[in-house]
């Protein structure tokens, strides 16, 4: 039951993801360079945050043409799972593996701060350790996180929404202008999740614990 963390030139959250998984008990986890495409024995591929290929052209636009990324559809067909965090989420929408688009934040600026999220769907392999409606704190750090579906129906695909401390989904608690405060979504197969918040950065008692249940869900459902 291997986990692999994709590394593209410009990826910068690969080490954070490795730390979070190992710290929470996932032993067989390592990096995979973007020029490799052999995912034999891998159950979960993580597309971590960063600025792959400098985000030149468009976020994620170059990474999706790599050998590794092109192996994803067959990997999913063979039962694999993918989670894209931040830049990884941008790759997944860019490649149309997840519906919708990620546009620039309405402020046009990079936003780095803690946000409160409401768990909208706990019937996914990535969130089953939460209860529906749970509130969790995670950091965001992005310029391009304004999720916009453009006519596609995504109601059932929403996993996390930005909300205020009381769990209310409000305009004020939406950091980047995303459609209906969407922070994370999953595809129809339930195998591919993308989210802007960095759950890997809140995975120990000193940094915060908001992301630990995502990792526990992965252990329980994907690596069992």
């Amino acid at each position: 039951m291997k986990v692999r963390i994709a590394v593209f030139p410009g990826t910068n959250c690969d080490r954070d993801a490795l730390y979070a998984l190992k710290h929470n008990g996932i032993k067989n986890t390592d990096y995979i360079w973007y020029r490799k495409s052999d995912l034999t024995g891998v159950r979960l591929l993580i597309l971590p945050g960063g600025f792959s290929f400098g985000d030149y052209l468009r976020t994620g636009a170059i990474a999706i043409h790599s050998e590794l990324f092109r192996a994803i559809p067959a990997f999913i067909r063979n039962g694999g799972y993918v989670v894209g965090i931040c830049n990884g989420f941008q790759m997944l929408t860019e490649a149309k593996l997840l519906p919708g688009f990620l546009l620039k934040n309405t402020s046009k600026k990079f936003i780095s701060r803690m946000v409160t999220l409401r768990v909208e769907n706990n019937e996914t392999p990535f969130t089953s350790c939460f209860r529906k409606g749970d509130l969790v704190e995670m950091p965001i750090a992005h310029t391009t996180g304004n999720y916009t579906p453009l006519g596609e129906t995504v109601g059932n695909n929403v996993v996390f929404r930005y909300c205020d401390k009381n769990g209310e989904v409000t305009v004020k608690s939406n950091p980047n202008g995303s459609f209906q405060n969407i922070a994370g979504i999953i595809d129809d197969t339930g195998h591919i999740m993308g989210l802007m918040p960095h759950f890997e950065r809140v995975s120990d008692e000193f940094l915060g614990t908001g992301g630990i249940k995502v990792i526990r869900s992965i252990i329980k459902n994907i690596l069992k």
Partner: protein
Amino acid sequence: MSDLKQKDRTVIEERLGRPLNEVEAGIFSVMWSEHCSYRTSKPTLRRLFSTSKRKLIGEGENAGILDIGNGYFTAFKMESHNHPSAIEPYQGAATGVGGILRDIFTMGARPVASADPLRFGPMSEQRSRHLLEEVVKGISDYGNSVGVPTISGETQFDRSYSVNCLVNVFALGIGKKSSLVRGVARGEGNLVLYFGSRTGRDGVHGATFASDELNEESKKQRPSVQIANPFEEKKLIEACMELAEKGLLVAMQDMGAAGLTSSSVEMAARGGVGMEMDLSLVPLRQDDVTFYEMMLSETQERMLSVVNPKNLGKVTAILEKNEIEWAVIGKVIKERSLVLKSGSEPVADIPLYILLENIPPANAASEEYSKESGEAAPVRSNAVPDTFVKILSSDLVNSKHWIYEQYDSRVGCDTLKCPGDGPAVLRVEKTRKALSISCLGLEEYVEISPFKGGYATVARAFLEHLLLGFEPIGITDCLNFGNPEDPKIMFQFNASVEGMNEAAKTLNVPVISGNVSFYNENETGAVKPLLEIGMVGLSENHSKKRPAAFRNLNGLIYTIELSSKTLSPSVYSKEMETAPYAFVPEFDKNKLELFIRTFKKHGHLMDSVRVQPRGGTFTGIFKMALQREFGFEIMDASLEDLFAEGPGIVIAEVEKACEKAFLHAFSAFTLCHIGNIKEKEISVNGMTLDRRVLTEAYFNTFGEHFQ
């Protein structure tokens, strides 16, 4: 054309016994510039206290490094990028970040934190808002891309910075001692390996540009501002980490100021060898870059290294995996000279001792002054609710989250205390060990009384770390002054550095690296002198970190005065436009030393504690109450009690049950029970203040400048 001064040219040609050619003159013009040779500041800097049992390398290398135990070292340094940022703020700031990070990872340390002290003109000026917005964006885009968290900084405002803003950049790295790479070339026949970006014309004369005043001509020097490519930098970081870890390099230095020239010459000189380079092999961005431009170019994201020929294959494999261009451009030679060729054609041949030694000092004259004036007469007026709002909404005080929320402060999973207030805290590679990091400059004090100002800067920074539960282990400085040919500015420089040094010695914190930036002036005069320091502290157990936010309802609020305090200069005197006198508060050295000992023993008697921030004791108490949404009452407080500022005023929370023990333990100090922690309500001298109004004044006012 080279801008080598005629006086210098005469000296050099006499020593060399022949005329210089154009390329050689260019090389001398940068190596003898103030920016590279420190010919004005060296006599003062040489006296800096730098002794530490932790010190592995001090000044003179790319950054100072300290042993932090368990096989780790830390390297940190601060630099200025003032002139480029004033002309082209986005690129100036971005390349400033890139440059300082290279100084760190060139030593085999992974850059894990950066910080940015900034100075601008008032935000009422359109130009200053533009500069700030672009500088912040430059730092944000670069730092975020390369994955180094920006975790600290400070931003202040004064009219003297309207034209010549100040952009200082601090970076810190952590490495394994076994991976340390030095910039010392050795071994005749070893190869000189160039890697990273191709060389273009950008930044030619950057070093001499930084050694002159800003004027209308400066705008024409836009080509002297370099262009940033954070993606290339990120690839370099990863490649250099792997090269260092595998011990594949003899030496490495980034091509910073004066690019290929300084990196080759300095590595050769440190190793007591020479270097021969074939300029026809240097990778170029365009074909028509001349040899002269090649030697002076400051194209970013370039590294120069020395490699044993038997390791070349392994080194280039790592570079190629990371998609980095490389070229072997020369070799280490025994003769201590810089020998440049193009194929077999000679281009330049300069003995290193003529290039680096006996550079005639500037012999700058110094004229003593003090701008202290008048008596600190008690102020009798009373504060009205509006006064509190005015202080908290002042740009000198209010929250700068509009700035630091544009910086990724958490990447790396080691940031335990984010930017906002007081030193940031970064744990060392996921262990219990942690570093505290802060930046501080007190330009008002340094201008009025340079020695006292320099002393206060170090002592106040020291207290911040101490109160947080960290032991300060080192200082890096960035000295931003006007034209040193003005004797008053030279005095300002010498005396403030003396003050900094005196405090560093007293408190036993070595100055391990630094940077000098002169000529920060324009037609309207010199900037307020900024002696900015970066201080780093160490704790073996970060869970013992002491809080600066109030913890208990009904806690008693005490102040402890280790320095005098003043209403002028202060945020109060600036915002209320009352400046009847100028007085720089001074530390009582004996009290300071006694307090340090007492605090280490009895600090646990305080539930929360901090140094008074800008804006005075009221502002300090307000900030301590903010985090857990406590209220507070302040009783019988004069205007001075509330708003006078001093670098050594400590604000502490003491539980009623511990009060007696606290009073006993700290009986040697001037203690004042100024208030109490309340549930929600905020009141001063019986007058209730609107909590919501104060909070909005503190949090929302800075961002409003940009709406």
